């Protein structure tokens, strides 16, 4: 086994995002190929430079990545479709980075795309009897975690509403976000109850859309000024004894794990990168549900358990705060096209580290972290550095 830090350096040469939203008349390969073309232009590469493609999606069926690639050019390169629930995009990114680090390829495309089924996510990551029992309501699974978090930390539904308000405020300055409009505390707290104690505006909206990135070795990079280095990309799945109701996994009182999957993925990424939480200038946390952003920040090591609600209230996670979190509006504003989400987070970090984020730019951002979860369960952490 080899650590990425001992292997060839990998850079992000460019990225492409479509405007995420609701598109009844467009298909995933329409968004996917659009994102690829934007990423190619952004990176300065031609399609002939691309030697392999890893394509994340969840509900798009067989060979969806191929469908998108077909609209760009058939050059015979290996196209691998990656389904890893809401971590599909970041898992595809990790595979692409590994193949460049291992010197198998010099230039690789990563794609994440999704046209979401309508209504609540029909997660099938459960046994048939669990599905028939109605245990696949991810909002309710998060709500189960939320009531425990509230009891353990004293956090309130108002704290969770504050996450939505912050992220929707950031989303106003993100032209790719599904929602670019602020919401008030009152609007969140008066929205309809979905799964107690969580209301509609505590939940991220779904969206259709795509994200793409081109990763390459340093010698291939076209613009050194705009390059971003991949310092780590970790991925963990379930650990024995950790409760993951969203993946149908029970907690064990007799044998609790030393580290949960989020803590483990963060530890691995920090070790590989040589950085710690204190080094991060921008953070993309996983806000599928508002309370999850708070415990995510805690589990990633940015503060102690139970401190995130207070820090949020003090403005620590605002753009201009001590640890800006979800500068692009997060899932709350972008929306959640499952296969694209993890890569969309990474695209925002690239944008921030290049200093190209406009009104949502974090001044002097040099090192940044993205975290995505997924049913399974999955936890992926990506750490990037400017240039």
């Amino acid at each position, binding site marked *: 086994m080899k650590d990425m830090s001992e292997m060839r350096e990998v850079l992000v040469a460019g990225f492409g995002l479509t405007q995420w939203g609701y598109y009844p008349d467009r298909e995933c390969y329409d968004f996917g190929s659009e994102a690829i073309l934007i990423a190619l232009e952004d990176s300065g590469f031609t399609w002939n430079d691309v030697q392999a493609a890893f394509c994340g999606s969840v509900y798009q069926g067989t060979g969806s990545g191929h469908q998108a690639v077909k609209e760009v050019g058939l050059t015979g390169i290996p196209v691998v479709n990656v389904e890893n629930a809401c971590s599909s995009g970041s898992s595809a990114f990790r595979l692409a980075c590994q193949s460049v680090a291992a010197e198998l390829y010099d230039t690789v495309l990563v794609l994440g795309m999704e046209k979401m089924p309508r209504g609540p996510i029909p997660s099938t990551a459960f046994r048939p009897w669990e599905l028939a029992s109605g245990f696949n309501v991810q909002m309710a699974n998060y709500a189960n*975690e939320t009531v*425990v978090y509230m009891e353990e930390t004293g956090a309130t539904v108002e704290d969770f509403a504050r996450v939505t308000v912050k992220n929707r405020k950031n989303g106003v300055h993100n032209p790719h976000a599904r929602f670019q409009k602020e919401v008030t505390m009152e609007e969140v707290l008066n929205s309809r109850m979905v799964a107690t104690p969580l209301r509609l505006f505590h939940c991220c909206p779904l969206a259709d859309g795509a994200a793409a990135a081109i990763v390459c070795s340093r010698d291939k990079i076209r613009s050194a000024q705009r390059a971003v280095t991949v310092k780590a990309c970790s991925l963990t799945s379930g650990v024995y004894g950790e409760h993951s109701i969203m993946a149908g996994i029970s907690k064990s009182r007799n044998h609790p794990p030393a580290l949960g999957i989020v803590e483990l993925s963060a530890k691995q990424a920090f070790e590989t990168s040589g950085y710690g939480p204190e080094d991060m200038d921008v953070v993309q946390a996983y806000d599928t549900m508002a309370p999850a952003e708070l415990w995510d920040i805690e589990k990633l090591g940015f503060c102690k358990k139970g401190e995130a609600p207070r820090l949020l209230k003090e403005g620590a996670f605002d753009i201009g705060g001590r640890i800006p979190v979800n500068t692009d509006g997060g899932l709350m504003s972008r929306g959640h096209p499952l296969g694209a989400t993890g890569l969309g987070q990474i695209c925002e970090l690239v944008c921030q580290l290049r200093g190209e984020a406009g009104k949502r730019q974090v001044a002097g951002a040099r090192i940044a972290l993205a975290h995505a979860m997924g049913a399974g369960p999955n936890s992926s952490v990506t750490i990037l550095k400017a240039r």
Partner: protein
Amino acid sequence: MNSESNRIPIHEGFWTTPASEDEPPQLIGSHCESCGESFFPKKEKGWCTYCRQKTLKDVRLSRRGKIASFSVVMQQPGGGFYKGPVPYAYGAVELPEGIYVTTLFKTDDFDELELHRDVELVIDKLCEDEEGRDIVTFKFMPV
């Protein structure tokens, strides 16, 4: 009351079906003779996923536990798999064996659901199948 043939369990072998009504049903789990860990549902392969040995034996689990987490679902789940009533409540119950069972809750009043509250196992109707027969499942009910 429906005869047993009109009551279809959501899954075979999840609970005991006592001959007498005085004897209440119990969930059937697995207990590891090597490490002492318990599981529900029982592991068909007899393989302990904690100590990774083939030393599991069937065991009847405690009928009472405490609510460890819960949520009341206010909208129809996606995918069309669930055919029971809405709203409904589910969460985790901690059993004295040290394991957590994900379960539906039976209650006429969702306000009865509170963390750490004592609950007891019941076998209860979930929904009906296409032929009008009751699909039954295990639930926990506040006591």
